[in-house]
């Protein structure tokens, strides 16, 4: 999904300030929101982590940008509880005393047509290119690296493929690779002569490059 969540490289944001001695939670509701997120996935088994991440991605862009992280956590969690039929919106809004902002719906055809890769196709040192796919559903290849070439610097174990896992597709696992991209290849006007960005990418996001 080419959503607001895929923030890497977006310009126009301001300074980043570190809060000294920041507590784990600033407000008690944040702690509860976190615990609800964990309990619905681990105790209730209502949904998996990929569905959860995608639910947050489906929030309205203005709501996403404006709200606290733990409000995103709650919004994604509750959207799935409603979509899975565990709770009703009417009951929730009655209890909450007002409109309960939720994530938007899943796209009709959320998954790109990618071939599963049961065996690792790439090795450290290989040059690879990220496919220029743009599915409307969950994908963990950031937009900023799609279509770009990089070098494999590490091969990680197999992990569940998020694009299908988030959408009830075939459960499969694939190796991921730490692919290093030169910053100046990603952004033409970068002044980062020697700097690089490393992205952890699933096998089927990649193709061999020369």
């Amino acid at each position, binding site marked *: 999904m080419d959503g607001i969540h895929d923030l890497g490289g977006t310009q126009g944001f301001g300074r980043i300030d570190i809060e000294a001695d920041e507590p784990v939670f600033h407000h008690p509701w944040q702690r509860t929101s976190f615990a609800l997120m964990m309990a619905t996935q681990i105790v209730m088994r209502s949904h998996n982590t990929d569905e959860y991440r995608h639910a947050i991605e489906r929030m309205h862009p203005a709501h996403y940008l404006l709200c606290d992280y733990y409000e995103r956590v709650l919004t994604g969690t509750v959207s799935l509880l409603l979509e899975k039929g565990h709770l009703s919106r009417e009951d929730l809004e009655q209890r909450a005393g007002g409109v309960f902002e939720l994530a938007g719906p899943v796209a009709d055809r959320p998954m790109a047509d990618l071939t599963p890769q049961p065996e690792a196709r790439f090795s450290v040192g290989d040059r690879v290119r990220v496919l220029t796919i743009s599915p409307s559903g969950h994908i963990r290849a950031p937009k900023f690296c799609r279509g770009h070439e990089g070098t494999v610097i590490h091969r990680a174990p197999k992990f569940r493929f998020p694009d299908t896992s988030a959408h009830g597709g075939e459960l499969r696992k694939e190796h991921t690779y730490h692919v290093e991209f030169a910053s100046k290849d990603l952004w033409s006007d970068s002044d980062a002569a020697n700097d690089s960005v*490393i992205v952890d990418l699933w096998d089927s996001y990649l193709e061999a490059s020369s």
Partner: protein
Amino acid sequence: MSEETDRNTRPKASIEQRVVATKEALIDAGRITEADLDQFAHMAQDWRPENGAKVVARAWTDPDFRARLLEDATSACAEMGYAGPQGEYIVALEDTPDRHNVIVCTQCSCTAWPVLGLPPDWYKSPAYRARVVREPRRVLREMGLQLSNEVAIRVWETSAETRYMVIPLRPEGTQSLTEDALANLVSREALIGVALANPPTR
């Protein structure tokens, strides 16, 4: 009426109200218990950057541990008791005099909870997520870390399941410090890579 206007004119429940409503609806339905929630809230308090700081201090003082950490950080951290959710596959990134590492999750806010703790607000901010991949040197400078242009910056995007921790350079003048004292020099910010390890206080 435009959609935005519409969104802004309907009365909304506050976030506190929404959290309470969700919690009570799930408890009333018998789907979760107060004890479940307490359990996860307590876990969150146990994941702390002090854990990662201890890992770093040991790596600085114990060459065998350092080698194990760089080879397989998941096991090395587990050895010290740090494991669990978002710590299933940890990779340690060692800074060198000419290479500095920094971590971000541009798509959500993933972090190695068992060793770094739940991430701070700045790490979760759209500004950090958007900017540090594109202009890391400037972002680090704004955050108080001025790196020489000779030092190459590697920005690690946590978009898949690998979770990273940075092993910062050991500060000068710390030869005589104990492992505990060394751990005190390593902040959460240093473990993420937006700060260096602190120099020893006199």
